[in-house]
């Protein structure tokens, strides 16, 4: 049903709204990845914007080189760089650039994860490190004006595989691509969390030492799932750049990275529908409110964060589950009242027997 609605959306929404929805669906891919490590494995990463940004930059570098026809991008010229820097070279080829958009974030995550998890840094300590990573990367990207565009980021793309990137047909194709990718990601995550691997992730979240005592080494699993999550964030970044046509270091910044956690928290961690729901809800809310009351939005975010953590730690999906259970219980109770009345007599007999035993 949801899939049909998403597939029908291009018929109902204006190009602008469709662009927004597409962008938020790309975010939802990242949210699923974040949920894998936070909701299921209990590792809170406050630097997922970095992986998103790296993926986005990889795609942006390819698109930029296609736009300039392999020549130097204009911002390099301003800074007096005369030759294409070595790390731009792979991005002349699509077959290298797009896989790299997932490999680079995954590799960075695996490296940080390996060093952190093997020395058993966990909980808030890891969160601090991931946050510091975001800060460090943003500072680095901001300062490199000549190499990767600095504050302005990379923008002004023209074509992709010969099609005009701003054409509404191309954008529609990107929208469908995003929906398909999200669906695939959902299936992948579902496959990962249902089954032995998923059970192990939950076990690491709830009692890591016990997992260790049972003979598993959690380090490998944690690094693996962290890298997967980063790769998904990179993928989301690619889809973001295709639809927005711009990537700046702001997208990697610490506040933005923590905002991503709210999407998951509000929707419901350790569920797979929740993060998607939360992402769409928060972003559309932000879009509606921040246009008219930018100040209100920041306050609302804070209140939402606080209320969500304090009063509904399981998020919206937790509420939905509770409601479902309540309805089910009521239905069962009303249908079982008659049976219960009949069984009163038999119940009474058991009671007398019990009494006599005592």
């Amino acid at each position: 049903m949801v899939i049909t609605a998403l597939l029908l959306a291009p018929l109902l929404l204006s190009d602008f709204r469709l662009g927004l929805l597409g962008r938020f669906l790309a975010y939802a891919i990242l949210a699923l990845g974040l949920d894998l490590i936070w909701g299921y494995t209990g590792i809170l990463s406050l630097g997922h914007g970095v992986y998103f940004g790296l993926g986005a930059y990889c795609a942006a570098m390819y698109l930029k080189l296609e736009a300039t026809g392999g020549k130097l991008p204009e911002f390099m010229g301003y800074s007096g760089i005369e030759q294409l820097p070595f790390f731009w070279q792979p991005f002349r080829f699509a077959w290298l650039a797009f896989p790299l958009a997932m490999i680079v974030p995954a590799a960075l995550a695996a490296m940080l994860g390996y060093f952190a998890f093997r020395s058993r840094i966990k909980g808030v300590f890891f969160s601090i490190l991931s946050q510091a990573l975001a800060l460090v990367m943003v500072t680095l990207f901001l300062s490199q004006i000549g190499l990767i565009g600095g504050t302005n980021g990379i923008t002004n793309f023209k074509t992709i595989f010969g099609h005009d990137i701003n054409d509404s047909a191309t954008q529609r194709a990107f929208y469908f691509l995003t929906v398909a990718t999200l669906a695939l990601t959902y299936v992948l995550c579902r496959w990962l969390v249902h089954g032995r691997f998923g059970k192990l992730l939950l076990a690491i979240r709830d009692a890591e030492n016990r997992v260790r005592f049972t003979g598993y080494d959690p380090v490998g699993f944690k690094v693996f799932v962290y890298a997967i999550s980063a790769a998904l964030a990179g993928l989301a970044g690619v889809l973001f750049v295709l639809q927005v046509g711009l990537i700046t270091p702001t997208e990697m910044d610490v506040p933005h990275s923590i905002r991503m956690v709210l999407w998951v928290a509000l929707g419901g961690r350790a569920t797979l529908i929740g993060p998607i729901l939360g992402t769409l809800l928060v972003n559309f809310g932000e879009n509606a409110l921040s246009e008219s009351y930018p100040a209100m939005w920041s306050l609302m975010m804070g209140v939402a964060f606080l209320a969500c953590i304090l009063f509904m730690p399981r998020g919206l999906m937790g509420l939905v589950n509770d409601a479902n259970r309540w309805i089910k219980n009521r239905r069962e109770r009303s249908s079982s009242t008659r049976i219960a009345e009949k069984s009163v007599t038999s119940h009474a007999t058991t009671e007398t027997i019990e009494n006599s035993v005592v």
Partner: protein
Amino acid sequence: MNSGALASNLFNALSLGSILLLIALGLAITFGLMRVINMAHGEFIMAGAYATYVTQNFFQSKFPNFIGWYLIASIPFAFCVAALLGWLLEATVIRRLYGRPLDTLLATWGVSLILQQLARTIFGSLGVNVQSPAWLGGNWKLGESLVVPHERVFIMAVALGCLAGMGIFLYYSQVGRRIQAVMQNRDMASCLGISTRKVDALAFSVGSGLAGIAGCALTMLSSIDSNVGTKYIIDSFMVVVLGGVGSLAGAVAGALGMGVLNTVWEYETTASLGRVLTFVCVILFLQWKPQGLVATRSRALD
């Protein structure tokens, strides 16, 4: 590095280290005691900075003759404002999230967003300036390349004063010893009749109050806006990670370590690349000592 550069680098490292120490002292207590990261710590710094600004305005309008002394008066005021905020935060939010450190982190992040917005509503989104008193305006020229502004020396003095104060408070006063007892073994302390709830509330307010003093000191370095706390806060968290949790020595070691690393790398490379290298150094260091420079010995598994 010649001797002049060495001296100025050393001074910069000490100066940065003392700022980080001021902020991390508060964190060392709140984090050391309750194992929660208070993301709103940066906003307590902001509250202290604005408290200094308010004191300055108050002195300007009521006691223009004593304007030089406003900074001294603002230190206890900033402490009280931030401590009150901390007490409120502990009573309303943190107490409810006991045993869920990651959730506390996120909830306090929400609080920090709210406080920032409040500050923007009250004081406007443009930065406000605090004039350093005249007696802090000058500087000492020590040698060729080393100019020591009085403001920086004052910040170092405040940091040292706070460190000494905390040392006496934690290790010699009765309340401080209770805090230590709860830090070391919460269950046992509770069995021996210490009200861990009261200790939590008290320690959290004291830690937050120190953030207020840090804010007061930061007014001398830059203008104050709602983001003044966020500038140093992540580095201060790194100080706690690098230094180790639960002791003042750890906070000092971590602050000096971060100060030296940042300054040296920045001198050798660029400001941004320096931060990357500092981060890499901290990660590599944690491979060797995962619990930080000064680790508290414990047989507990978690």
